């Protein structure tokens, strides 16, 4: 006896194939559009940072530099050594060759240094303050736990601009204006709540029984935190370090208020100063902009996984 196989009336196999192809095509187009949307502005910034002053003013623009130059970057890294270029002696140079280097260019590297120092200090303080707090909130049942969580939650939503006036007066009265410590202190207000929430979320994800086992094994609370939870929380610690660092590195408003000279000015401040100076060449500004975005982008690319998990943890809870 032979089995006859009836073909279904509709050719499902063909339909499936068609559906798969159109799905893949849609995804491809979507992915391209997203990639272009995200990358094109940055690419334009990078491209124009390699163009000379003469090329950058061409109409229509050259999307890819025809005569790429590193002069803009050189100017930044050597700005401190050169004779100060002022509005007066600047006119002595050929405008077409692109010599509009601002006198503040030499502040750029010190500003990067300041940004790094501030961000590092903020990171360290965040860890010192945030880790024990998060452990307590996640694993210790105590009276006032919920109240503490709501309190920290509330501090997270205070807009930074509402802190500016009181901060300014206090810092001015303490004589701390134009000191990086004023930045470190105020950046704690914008970073610590987020840090605590990322870590609370992570610690809560670790089993309670692990904590109990550690306690029964003879750990005090601090020993349980240091010997059992810290070694296990590396991913969330990485996320915390990244967020605190990037937030401090990128912060603008508070730095604008509290810094005055290159003793404390951070990178965003120096950059912003360039943009308001109409005499400065755009190619130079763009080079400075590229320098400002390279470190965060490198960090973002390397630690993509940690950032995504950290962002979701911190945001969902906060």
């Amino acid at each position: 006896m032979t089995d006859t196989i009836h073909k279904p009336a509709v050719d499902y196999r063909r339909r499936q194939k068609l559906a798969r192809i159109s799905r893949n095509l849609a995804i491809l187009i979507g992915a391209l559009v997203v990639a272009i949307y995200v990358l094109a502005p940055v690419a334009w910034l990078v491209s124009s940072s390699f163009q000379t002053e003469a090329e950058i003013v061409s109409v229509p623009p050259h999307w890819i530099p025809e005569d790429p130059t590193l002069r803009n970057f050189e100017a930044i890294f050597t700005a401190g050594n050169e004779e100060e270029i002022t509005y007066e002696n600047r006119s002595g140079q050929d405008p077409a060759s692109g010599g509009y280097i601002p006198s503040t260019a030499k502040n750029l590297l010190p500003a990067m240094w300041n940004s790094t120092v501030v961000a590092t200090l903020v990171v360290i303080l965040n860890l010192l303050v945030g880790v024990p707090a998060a452990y307590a909130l996640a694993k210790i049942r105590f009276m006032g736990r919920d109240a503490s969580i709501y309190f920290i939650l509330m501090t997270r939503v205070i807009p930074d601009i509402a802190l500016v006036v009181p901060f300014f007066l206090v810092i001015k009265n303490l004589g701390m204006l134009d000191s990086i410590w004023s930045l470190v202190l105020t950046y704690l207000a914008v970073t610590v709540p987020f840090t605590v929430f990322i870590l609370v979320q992570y610690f809560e994800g670790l089993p309670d029984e692990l904590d109990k086992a550690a306690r029964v094994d003879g750990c005090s609370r601090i020993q349980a935190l240091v010997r059992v939870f810290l070694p296990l929380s590396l991913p969330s610690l990485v996320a915390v370090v990244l967020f605190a660092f990037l937030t401090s590195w990128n912060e603008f408003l508070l730095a604008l208020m509290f810094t005055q000279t290159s003793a404390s000015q951070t990178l965003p401040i120096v950059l912003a100063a360039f943009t308001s100076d109409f005499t400065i060449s755009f190619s130079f500004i763009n080079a400075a902009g590229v320098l400002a975005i390279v470190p965060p982008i490198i960090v973002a690319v390397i630690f993509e996984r940690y950032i995504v998990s950290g962002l979701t943890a911190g945001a969902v809870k906060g």
Partner: protein
Amino acid sequence: MTDTVNIQPGRSRLRAAFGYEERSAMIFLAPVMLVLMLVAVFPILYSLYLSFFRIKLTRPNRTPFVWLDNYTDLFGNELFWTSVARTVVFSVVSVSAIAVIALLVSLLLNQDFRFRRVLSTIILVPWAIPYVANALMWKWIYDSGYGALNGLLFQLDFISRYMVFLGDQNKTIYLIANAFVWKEVPLATILLLVSLKAIPSDLYAAARVDGATVWSRFVHVTLPAMKPGFLLVMIYETMMAIRHFDLFFILTEGGPGDASHVLSWHIYVETFRNLSFGSGAAMSYVLALVTFALSYIFIRTLGRRV
């Protein structure tokens, strides 16, 4: 052997209230509480106090207590209401655009395809860079003399000669919103992606077995599941939008005219250009209260159990 156990009741109650757990929790939380008191609670209270005085830094020796005058003056100030209107426009435009774009991108990233990892890394770029760098980048793109936007439109023959963008008061707030949206979409996307990923695949399988088409699966399974994510994005991004300052400072300084004179810019001008700290504090207090009201919804709807 005796069964009598002597526990002093008063002492035990005290020890129960401040037992080992409570004591260690207090020690662990002390630093964070100290820091937050210092850098968040104290400034906010101090700000409230300041807002009852007329403080002009140009006149440091006369700071009369004026009760609520700073607030009542504020509500009579036309420019203040202009700035509120601008802020509302900016926030509504940006937040809706963010929600729509982030929805599309998160749906895309929820698919399984070869370059998904690459794309999800790329998408972090706008999130990572400083707002100041974002601002100077867009300033250059919008530049009326040599900018990329002009160049692109010109090469595509949409315009016959370069035009003014940021200097055009009908366009400027939307252009700033565009720069804001570009920077905020990544975070919103990640938040939406979480709620997408949380949908159990069983649910899709069940819907398929029930005969649901792609579209009805999207409407009946995906969208309802994304509701909390959407709410979170809307509230968070609204909070970010109404307080946003950096772009306005660098791109337009509130101009042209008062076309981009938003609330945060208004506070800045009042405080640091007019050096009127009392009314600046009052205004930032209003902004803080609005944010608190929003965050109340935020906590009520999402933070129920932390």
